[in-house]
């Protein structure tokens, strides 16, 4: 096949198939001062894609707070880095792999995990944990069951093999994701606070190496594909295939290489492969790069410069080494059996120059590729006015309680996480099923706390408040374990930015998240934006997912999400921290009754939220309580049931007289947590709550009963057996998948 000539690209508008609009093509011509050839047009196409350039979101992302005394590296690098004290730091980032997972779920999820892993060790950090935030349609659909099962298998397939524990995350199910599942993977690594490595190509004349897998014809156009509309129309050929064994060797070799001190800069070849890694490394250094493409190790004969530059073959790194010390690298890579090729050198002329068969086949200003990529202020629609009015209460307490616990978003996720190695590296203190995961820093009495969260129902109803809640919930998860929250990463999963109403959601959700980040002192240090999440013209509900990271000094202080069975059976008081509320706005109850999100987003007050987080840390520090669990989806009813199911002990809940019982049980008002405390510590708990100005009330007790009893004004309002609640909670997901399997074989 002959490549089109520059004139054909212009006249036949070939650039459109490379992802460039007419106006963008004209801009490329202007920046180059001539017509781009095919490889150049392809390179501009991927680097100026939504996926690589953030052209629709950039102007809004600037509103995130990104600094703080704890921040060692903010956005713009491969990952963000925060200080956790005692000379140690944590690198972390979350990234979406939604579009590949929609067409090839196992490999889409696996390569999502592999990609984020490389972003972390590239910073010089030893990866220690994965978390995954997943969204699917309802499980009554065979395609959804396939996507769900394969995504989980793919995450396990990669993560288990590379030997990094998957310690947390969440899975939610809603019709909004039926045609467009979300797969957001987060990786966290540990490094010395003074050991950060950056993706910078400096030092004129320094050699540039490609390390790891050979470059093949797979995944060409992955980045532009991720920025195209309908996954139904997307091709499997654009999806890459992961090799976790090679990923593991590459990780070990790169960490050893970084430790040897010969690395000038290092970057993962992720989306847009060699193109984005080389252009971004040169851009950060303000210099240029010259690549001799004949020297790139390839998987097959006859690959063109276009294919080599745009391939997204996995498990590859671009490394700039100190000139004269290459042998150190060669020795390390040989020991791991990895291929390494000298493909070029660092220049100071600010150009990305490609040489093939002795000729210059591409010559572009780096600034035009990266820094001067188009930025759009897309039209923003008018804000949606949250609905007012009463939410029908047609589901009884019993029906709702069981339905909520059996809703797969709330139900037990053991089916998912027991397919993940949650303990490899032998540092997992608290794994999946906890409010937040805790992973020990080896050799220190200190653990990193991690959680992900993001409820699109709230954002759909009220993007600004929903954005606040997304951050507050993730950060509260950390505080509930007793950890000090430090910073967040995020994935902004939204619909088509060319629609003004989607841009409104994006803009308002970012404002809400920024509000919460400021109020809770958890700046954004890394993140990713995934737009065009739509299927058959329907956009997904706006889904900002937040990954929060904190630290707990002294692992004995940690608060589990439920007490041990023996302790609970002997009798504990159950306290509610935060305010009473009986509004059903934005609740899962409302969605179950009405079939869609209803009302406004739940109540939140960020100042109250901050005080709650500080109180929880104080409670943990003073070792007053034995367990804490935050109140989120399904309200007090779900939170209490989860705690009781986990410790296998029933108890009583006392509703205030002035509250509507149903609303009080299922309200999802924010800034609240349940705490289990021994009777003789309750006074101290109340005192701490008072000094932190957080409302606290003895809500009931846990103890020797097999029932869950709700009382109001001294009367028994409702009783349900713990066994019935447990059954609903534990069987929902396995049953949904089993009945599907039965249908398929029938």
């Amino acid at each position, binding site marked *: 096949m002959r490549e089109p000539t520059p004139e054909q690209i212009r006249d036949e508008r070939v650039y459109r198939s490379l992802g460039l609009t007419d106006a963008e093509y004209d801009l490329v011509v202007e920046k180059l001062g001539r017509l781009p050839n095919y490889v150049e047009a392809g390179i501009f196409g991927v680097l100026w894609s939504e996926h690589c350039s953030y052209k629709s979101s950039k102007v809004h992302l600037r509103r995130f707070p990104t600094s703080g005394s704890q921040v060692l590296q903010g956005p713009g690098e491969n990952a963000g880095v925060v200080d956790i004290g005692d000379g140690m730091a944590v690198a972390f980032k979350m990234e979406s792999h939604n579009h590949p997972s929609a067409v090839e779920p196992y490999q889409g999820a696996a390569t999502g995990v592999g990609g984020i892993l490389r972003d972390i060790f590239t910073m010089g950090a030893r990866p220690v944990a994965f978390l995954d935030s997943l969204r699917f349609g309802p499980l009554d659909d065979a395609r959804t069951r396939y996507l769900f099962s394969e995504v989980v298998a793919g995450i*396990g397939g990669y993560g288990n093999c590379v*030997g990094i524990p998957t310690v947390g995350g969440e899975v939610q199910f809603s019709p909004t994701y039926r045609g467009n599942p979300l797969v957001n993977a987060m990786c966290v690594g540990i490094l010395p606070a003074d050991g950060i490595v950056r993706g910078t190509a400096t030092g004129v004349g320094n050699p540039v190496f490609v390390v790891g897998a050979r470059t093949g014809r797979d995944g060409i156009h992955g980045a532009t594909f991720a920025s195209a509309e309908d996954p139904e129309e997307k091709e499997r050929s654009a999806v890459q295939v992961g090799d976790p064994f090679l990923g593991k060797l590459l990780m070990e070799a790169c960490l050893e290489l970084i430790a040897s001190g010969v690395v000038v800069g290092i970057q993962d070849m992720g989306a847009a492969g060699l193109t984005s890694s080389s252009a971004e490394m040169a851009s950060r250094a303000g210099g240029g790069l010259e690549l001799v493409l004949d020297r790139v190790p390839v998987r097959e004969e006859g690959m063109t410069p276009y294919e080599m530059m745009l391939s997204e073959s996995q498990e590859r790194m671009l490394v700039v080494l100190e000139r004269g010390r290459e042998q150190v690298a060669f020795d390390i890579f040989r020991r791991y059996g990895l291929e390494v090729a000298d493909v070029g050198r660092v220049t100071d002329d600010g150009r990305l120059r490609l040489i093939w068969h002795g000729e210059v086949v591409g010559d572009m200003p780096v600034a035009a590729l990266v820094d001067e990529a188009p930025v759009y202020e897309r039209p923003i629609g008018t804000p949606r006015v949250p609905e007012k009015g009463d939410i029908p209460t047609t589901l009884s307490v019993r029906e709702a309680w069981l339905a909520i616990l059996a809703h797969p978003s709330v139900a037990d996720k053991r089916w998912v996480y*027991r397919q993940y190695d949650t303990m490899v*590296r*032998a540092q997992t*203190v608290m794994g999946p099923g906890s409010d937040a995961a805790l992973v*020990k820093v080896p050799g220190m009495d200190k653990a990193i706390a991690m959680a992900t969260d993001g409820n699109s129902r709230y954002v759909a109803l009220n993007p600004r408040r929903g954005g606040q809640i997304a951050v507050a919930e993730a950060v509260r998860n950390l505080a509930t374990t007793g950890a000090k929250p430090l910073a967040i990463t995020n994935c902004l999963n939204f619909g088509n930015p060319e629609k003004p109403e989607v841009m409104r959601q994006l803009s308002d959700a970012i404002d809400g998240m920024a509000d919460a980040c400021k109020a809770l002192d958890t700046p954004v240090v890394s993140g990713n934006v995934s737009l065009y999440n739509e299927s058959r013209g329907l956009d997904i509900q706006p889904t900002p997912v937040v990954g929060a990271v904190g630290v707990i000094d002294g692992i004995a202080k940690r608060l589990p999400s439920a007490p041990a069975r023996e302790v609970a059976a002997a009798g504990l008081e159950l306290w509610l921290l935060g305010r009473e509320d009986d509004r059903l706005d934005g609740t899962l109850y409302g969605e179950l009754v009405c079939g869609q999100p209803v009302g406004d987003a739940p109540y939140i007050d960020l100042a109250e939220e901050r005080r709650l987080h500080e109180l929880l840390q104080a409670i943990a520090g003073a070792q007053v309580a034995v367990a804490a669990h935050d109140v989120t989806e399904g309200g007090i009813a779900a939170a209490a049931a989860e705690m009781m199911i986990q410790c296998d002990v029933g108890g009583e809940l006392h509703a205030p007289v002035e509250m509507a019982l149903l609303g009080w049980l299922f309200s999802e008002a924010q800034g609240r947590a349940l705490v289990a405390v021994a009777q003789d510590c309750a006074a101290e708990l109340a005192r701490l709550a008072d000094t932190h100005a957080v409302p606290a009330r003895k809500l009931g007790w846990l103890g020797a009963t097999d029932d869950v009893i709700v009382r109001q004004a001294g009367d028994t309002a409702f009783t349900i057996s713990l066994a019935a609640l447990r059954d609903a909670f534990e069987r929902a997901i396995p049953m949904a998948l089993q009945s599907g399997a039965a249908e398929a074989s029938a």
Partner: protein
Amino acid sequence: MKWAVVVFPGSNCDEDAAQAVRETTGDTVDLVWHDATDLSQYDAIILPGGFSYGDYLRSGAIARFSPAVEAVRREVAEGKLVLGICNGFQVLTESHLLPGALLRNNHLQFRCEMVELIVDNNTSPFTRAYQLGERIQIPIAHGEGRFHADPETVADLRNEGRIAFRYAHSPNGSVADIAGILGQGGNVLGLMPHPERAIFDWMGSVDGRRLFQSMHQYVEEGLAHARANA
């Protein structure tokens, strides 16, 4: 005494095993790369968990050809202690240092969770610190952990007291609920559960400690005996 943990490309529980040995015995541990040809300086050798050489073909199928496994074979013949955990157990069966094979779990999924084991032999160098019939908590993490052997082999294992650990509730469909077996000489143990993940309270169990301590005690007694006779 001195321990070796063999590191194959793709091993990922090597550091965990070394940590467990250091924490429970205070002994010296070396991580030894898979190209090692001589392991004679070590008193005990651990083949750790992970995915040796990627395990794309069959777990342990490539590792059996490595120089380190040849060296292990010689040390087994010398009577040294060899402990294969998870992937290490798979390598030992592939190498025919232990009988049987480890097949895909009967439910076809990877499974990671705390399981209950029953101690079926408390006289071996690996299990002497446990009580016979004692129930202990040790986590598993494997996709191919279903032990399989022909009925005669299983009968031999049972009759010779070579079933070291059984699952109280099998998580993978192993024949006779087998979780760990001993070699003919009693100096090789392969087990699918991970004792190195059960050595501190915060891990949820400390029941793995005694396995490493049993080995330590056995070797130290042997060394003391040898010194006394010298």
